[in-house]
């Protein structure tokens, strides 16, 4: 109940900017499709595993979009809630609990993830990049990926007082994951150490699941294993974020 009121607050702010954000949600995948499909794809004419290169990377791009949006919404806005606008302090002064404040914030992050991913999925469908009736399941998967990366990030953002660490977080976490976690090429091509890092990253598990959903192929690893691994990130992330919020809001 309380979480919904908090989500409603975030949506009232979003109402001012949603047009621009939805527009860019479509623009980015559109440009990507053109660039990779028409441009890069022409050089990779063998495709990967019998699938055209574009169709192969689309699920990876959707998963990495989920990652980017989730991380973006879990960093500066959360820091601001504690440090600049101090929204969370106003919320905890009302009869809300820490779970409501955190839950409402997470709900908004996931909503943003869903909108961006759905836009990407729609563009991909228009380009004929979806091969399976399982493709809509991607929308559930991006929520899982979003929560798995957003929650630990929220915990991190709730622990810092200056945004200089956030740029660093993008450099050491988001960019390497995007480049090496199986979005653009199979992680099997990586040397062992990097490959294991890729296996540890939540993104690879998400990418493999999304790819399985849009292409209708078996995942490279057990689907249940992927889901459980991401669920562990969600659970630990939630505990961590809740503890950080609690500490900061009710000292």
């Amino acid at each position, binding site marked *: *109940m*309380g979480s919904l*009121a*908090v989500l*409603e*607050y975030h949506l*009232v*702010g979003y109402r*001012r900017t949603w047009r621009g954000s939805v527009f860019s949600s479509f623009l980015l995948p559109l440009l990507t499709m053109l660039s990779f499909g028409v441009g890069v794809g022409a050089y990779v004419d063998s495709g990967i595993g019998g699938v055209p290169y574009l169709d192969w990377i689309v699920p990876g791009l959707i998963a990495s979009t989920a990652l980017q949006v989730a991380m973006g919404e879990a960093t500066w806005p959360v820091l601001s809630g504690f440090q600049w*606008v*101090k*929204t969370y*302090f*106003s*919320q*905890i*002064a*009302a*009869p*809300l*609990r820490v779970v409501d404040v955190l839950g409402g914030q997470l709900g908004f992050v996931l909503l943003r993830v869903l909108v961006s991913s759905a836009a990407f999925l729609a563009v991909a469908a228009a380009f004929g990049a979806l091969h399976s009736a399982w493709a809509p399941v991607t929308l559930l998967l991006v929520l899982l990926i979003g929560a798995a990366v957003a929650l630990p990030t929220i915990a991190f953002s709730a622990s810092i007082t200056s945004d200089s660490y956030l740029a660093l977080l993008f450099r050491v976490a988001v960019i390497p994951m995007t480049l090496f976690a199986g979005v653009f090429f199979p992680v099997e091509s990586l040397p062992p150490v990097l490959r294991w890092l890729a296996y540890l990253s939540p993104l690879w598990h998400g990418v493999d699941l999304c790819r399985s959903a849009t292409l209708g192929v078996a995942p490279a690893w057990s689907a249940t294993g992927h889901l459980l691994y991401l669920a562990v990130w969600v659970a630990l992330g939630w505990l961590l974020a809740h503890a950080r919020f609690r500490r900061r*809001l*009710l*000292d």
Partner: protein
Amino acid sequence: MTVSSDGALIHARGLRKRFGEFTAVDGIDVDVPRGEAFGFLGPNGAGKSSTMRMIACVSAPSAGTLRILGMDPLRQGPAIRARLGVCPQLDNLDPELTVRENLTTYARYFRIPRRVARERADELLEFVQLTDRAGSKVEPLSGGMKRRLTIARALVNEPEIVLLDEPTTGLDPQARHLVWERLFRLKQQGVTLLLTTHYMDEAEQLCDRLVVMDGGRIVAEGAPRELITRYSTREVVELRFAADAPEDIAGKLAGVGERTEALPDRLLLYADDGDAALAQVQQRGLEPAGVLVRRSTLEDVFLHLTGRTLVD
């Protein structure tokens, strides 16, 4: 209605707040009955905000007893907060939302239906005279307008107790008088007010009773007039001298009035009859460059109790 045995809405005994090794609130006893306007007066760092945050149920006491509305803040925080209104020391309005949206979104945290929230927002904007800014963003508002909006937001749930942490700091005199007048109206409606302030005139105007805090402790408690009678003389003579240091002059005034306080720029001479004391000063051959005879205020009480001025 659930209240503690002696009828106090707020009841604290030996209340302490520690931050690591540092003790911000050092064992205070407070009882505030329903309908009272109660003040915390004290200089920077006295522990006023720390106390207010414990009462607002967003900061756990380190020791002591605290009951709000007969409930335990640790276990029943949300239930208590549902009946409180809080105006924090620093505004935490959303600058990107409109004035009205700041109220309506906040009302939703109290499970107030949307339609009621809109009605109440309009009433409250009327109350704090911000109706003409209802649709504009908060960002460009003046400090005084933001403060009034924060106060309006604290009233959105029709609270029984309103906590105001320095409600008028940074406001110009006109804005301050508007806030005072509104708070006075709330008090007349039976709302219990708790406020902190650096301003003795604010405390004298608004508070039925107040405590003077210093270094985390309560150093005096009572009604404003009562405190003045107890800790100060009826009148004060403020003396300024062109050349001599106030301390040097103080030495020459033994026996005049009840006591003196030497401030860097002036000497305060406490006496029940200010004019008579001034005559004695002149009889001693002292010729002050400036003289002011005035009534004692809480500022004098504070100076006497702590040896420091409240606002410098």
